[in-house]
C-alpha cells in the first residue's frame, strides 16, 4: 500500500485508509435470470411475481413497477407488462454460481442475501491488482460465466460501498476513492442512508434537512430530540461516513471450487476432460494450501441451452488427494455424458464441500489400499518453489497454464 500523505482529518478517524471494500449487487436479480434464460423477454418490460411483483426488469422499472407492488397496480403503471412465475431453483443456482466467483475473487466474502455480498479485496494488489481492476474482472466473469449483470461499488467502508453500488446501478462500477468519502456522500439525499425510511425522511424533510451533508451539520443533541437517541447516533455516524464494521466471513468456508467457461462451440470429450483435470488440480491444490480436506465432490455444468445442472458424490474419506477427487469428478461428468452430447457444454465447475481441517483427519482403515498423498505433496512443493506452471498434468501440456486470476490462501 502506498504511503498516505497527511493523516486524515479527525472526521475520518474511522475511515479505512484505502477503498478496498466492494459491494457487489446483481441487477434486478430474478428478472435478469428470466431474461437470460428466455430471449423473448429481453429488452421488454417484464417482472417476476404471482400476486405481487418480486422483481422487475429495468425496462419495467422505467414505468414505475416496483418490488412488492401488486400485479394489478403494476399492469396499470405499465400496460403490456409480462409477468412470469418465479423459478427459485434457477435463482439459487445462479446465486451459487455468482458466489463461487466471489469466493474465487477473494477469501473474504460476506454474503448479505441471495444477490449481494461484501468483498474485502485489500491485500490482493500484488496478486490481482487494484480494487478497480479486480471489480472490473469480477463483473466481466459474472457476465461471461453466469450471464448476468452485476454492479459493484468500492469504498473504504461497507456503508459507502453499498451506497456506491446503488448509485452506480444498473450494470455499473463506481469507486469512491479514499479521502473523497464526504464529498461523495454529502450531496446525496438523506434517503440513501440506512435507517431512513418514509417516517424519518418525512420528519427530517419537514425541518429542511434534505441531503446527507445537511444532516451531518445538525448537532447530535438536536438530532436526538428529533429522532431519538439511538437513531440519531446511527445516522450521525453514517452521515460522517463512520462505519467501522469489517467484512465478516463468518465461519470458515465449507467448500472450495473453481469453474471455467468453455465458449459455445462444440467440445470433444477429451477437451472437456482436460478442463476438468485442470479444475480439479486447481481446487485440490487450493485445498491443500488451506489445509482443508473434504468428502463431497460437486460437478456444476451449464449446457448449450443455458440450462444448468449439478451432480454430487461423497467419497469415503475426507481428502484433498487429486486423483481421488478427479476420479469422483470424472464419474459425475460421465453420468451427464448423454445430456452434454445432446445440448453441448458451455461451462464446467467443480467444488469440494463438507470441508474439515486437514490438520486433524480421522484416518480410515485401508480397505482399499493404494491411494497415497505423496505425489500431491511433491507437486505442491515444486509449485511453491518454482511457480504454478512448473509442474503440470500431461493432458494440460500446451494449454495456457492459468487463465484464472491468482488467489489468496483459502
Amino acid at each position, binding site marked *: 500500500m502506498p504511503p498516505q500523505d497527511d493523516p486524515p482529518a479527525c472526521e475520518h478517524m474511522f475511515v479505512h485508509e484505502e477503498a478496498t471494500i466492494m459491494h457487489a449487487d446483481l441487477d434486478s436479480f430474478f428478472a435478469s435470470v428470466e431474461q437470460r434464460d428466455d430471449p423473448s423477454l429481453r429488452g421488454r418490460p417484464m417482472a417476476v411475481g404471482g400476486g405481487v411483483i418480486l422483481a422487475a426488469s429495468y425496462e419495467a422499472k422505467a414505468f414505475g413497477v416496483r418490488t412488492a407492488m401488486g400485479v394489478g397496480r403494476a399492469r396499470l403503471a405499465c400496460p403490456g407488462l409480462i409477468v412470469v412465475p418465479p423459478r427459485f431453483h434457477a435463482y439459487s443456482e445462479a446465486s451459487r454460481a455468482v458466489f463461487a466467483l466471489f469466493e474465487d475473487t477473494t477469501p473474504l466474502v460476506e454474503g448479505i442475501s441471495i444477490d449481494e455480498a461484501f468483498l474485502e479485496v485489500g491485500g490482493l494488489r500484488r496478486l490481482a491488482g487494484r480494487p478497480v481492476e479486480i471489480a472490473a474482472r469480477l463483473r466481466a466473469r459474472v457476465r461471461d460465466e453466469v450471464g448476468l449483470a452485476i454492479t459493484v461499488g468500492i469504498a473504504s467502508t461497507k456503508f459507502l460501498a453499498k451506497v456506491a453500488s446503488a448509485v452506480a446501478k444498473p450494470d455499473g462500477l463506481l469507486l469512491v476513492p479514499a479521502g473523497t468519502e464526504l464529498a461523495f456522500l454529502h450531496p446525496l439525499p438523506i434517503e440513501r442512508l440506512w435507517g431512513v425510511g418514509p417516517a424519518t425522511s418525512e420528519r427530517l424533510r419537514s425541518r429542511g434537512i434534505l441531503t446527507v451533508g445537511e444532516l451531518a451539520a445538525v448537532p447530535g443533541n438536536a438530532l436526538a430530540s428529533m429522532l431519538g437517541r439511538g437513531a440519531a447516533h446511527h445516522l450521525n455516524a453514517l452521515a460522517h461516513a463512520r462505519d467501522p464494521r469489517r467484512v465478516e466471513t463468518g465461519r470458515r468456508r465449507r467448500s472450495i471450487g473453481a469453474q471455467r467457461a468453455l465458449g459455445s462451440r462444440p467440445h470433444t470429450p477429451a477437451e472437456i476432460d482436460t478442463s476438468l483435470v485442470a479444475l480439479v488440480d486447481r481446487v485440490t491444490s487450493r485445498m491443500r494450501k488451506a489445509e482443508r480436506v473434504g468428502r463431497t465432490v460437486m460437478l456444476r455444468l451449464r449446457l448449450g441451452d443455458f440450462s444448468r445442472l449439478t451432480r454430487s458424490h461423497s467419497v469415503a474419506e475426507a481428502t484433498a488427494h487429486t486423483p481421488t477427487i478427479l476420479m469422483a469428478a470424472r464419474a459425475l461428468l460421465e453420468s451427464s455424458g448423454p445430456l452434454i452430447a445432446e445440448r453441448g457444454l458451455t461451462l464446467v465447475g467443480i467444488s469440494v464441500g463438507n470441508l474439515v481441517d486437514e*490438520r*486433524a483427519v*480421522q*484416518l480410515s482403515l*485401508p480397505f482399499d489400499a493404494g491411494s497415497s498423498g505423496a505425489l500431491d505433496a511433491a507437486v505442491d512443493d515444486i509449485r511453491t518453489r518454482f511457480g504454478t506452471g512448473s509442474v503440470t498434468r500431461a493432458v494440460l501440456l500446451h494449454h495456457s497454464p492459468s487463465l484464472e486470476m491468482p488467489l489468496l490462501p483459502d
Partner: protein
Amino acid sequence: MKFRCERDVLVEALGAAGRAVANRGGALPVLSGVRAELEGDRLRLTGSDLELTIAVDITVAGSADGLAVLPSRVATDVVRSLDSGSVEVSVEGDEAHITSGRFQSAIRVLPADEFPRLAQPTDDAVTLAAADFAEALHQVVPAASADDARPILTGVLMAAEGHGLRLVATDSYRLAVRDLPGASILREGQSVLVPSRALRELERLLGGAAEVTLRLGEREATFEVGGVRLTTRLIEGEFPNYRGLIPVSHPNRLTVGREALAEAVRRVKLMAREPNTPVRLGMSSDGLELIAITQDVGQAHEQLDADYAGTELTVAFNPDYLLNGVEVTPGDEIVLDTVDAQKPAVIRANGGNEFLYLLMPVRVS
C-alpha cells in the same frame, strides 16, 4: 377375537412388537399396525416394517379366537394409560374395543388380510447363553456404521470361525471383532451380514433372559428370546476383508489399567471441543500422557501409570472411538498395540484373545 389379560403384560408386549412397526406405515399403511392373533390362550402380537419383524407371544385368558391388526400407536397409548389390572380386548367387525374398569374405547382396526405373510423360520437353530451373546453385541454393534450411504458397513458380520461364531463390525474408522468359541452355528466358511439396527433391538430384549436361539438363513436371521421372536432381513454384499488389516507385529505395546484409562479419557476429552479434535496419547517409558487441546478454548493433560515397551510415540485418536473401545474391552488391564502414528492400533484385554478393537488414528500436523 376376545381376550382378557393384565395391563402390564399387554403394554410390554405391544411395546416390544411396536418397535418394529414402520413409521407411519411407509408404503404399506397396514404396517403401521400390530397384528394380533389369538389361538386358545396364546396371543401373538407382530410388528414389522418388512426389514425387521418382532413377534411376541403372551398368555392371555382367551374366549374367542381371531385375527386383527390394531393401529400400533393408538392401541399402545390407550393400554399404557390404563391403571394396572385386567384389560379386555374384543374385536367385532372393524372395531377393537378396549375396556378396563369403567373405561371403554373403540378403535378402528386395519385390514388384516393386507398384513404381509411372514414365513416360519426353518433353518437350523443353535441356543446360546443370553448373557454371552448380549456382551458380544454390546462390544461389536457400536462399531457398525450409521451411514446408510454405505449399507454394508451398517451390518454386523456373523461368520463361522474355528469351532465358534465370530462377530465383526466396522464403520471404517474402527473395527470390533468378538469370538464366541463353541457356538458353531454356521458351516465353515459361511457368513451372514445382519443389520445393526436389528441387533440393537435384540440387545434390549436380551436383558434378564437366560437363553437366545439363533437361526441364520440365506436371506433372514431369526433370534428367539423368551416369548419374543425377532426376524431381520440380511444385508446382501461383501463385507470388507478385515483380516489383512489386523497388524501381525506390534513394535510398541502399552499396558494400562482399563478403568483408569477410561476415566482419564472421559476427563481429558472435555477439552476436545471441536468435532474432529483428537486426544493425543504420548507413550514413553515414563508411562502414558493424555492431551487434548482446542484452540481458543483450552487444554487438558493427564499422566497415567502404564507399562510401555517400544519407541517413544504420540498417537492421536478420536476420543469417542477410543473411549468406546476401552469401555467394551473386558478385563482389568488392556494392552494398546501401535505401529506408528498413522497405522491401525489394536486394543485387547491383557491376556485375552476373544475381543479385539482396531482403531485408526487421527492424523495431526
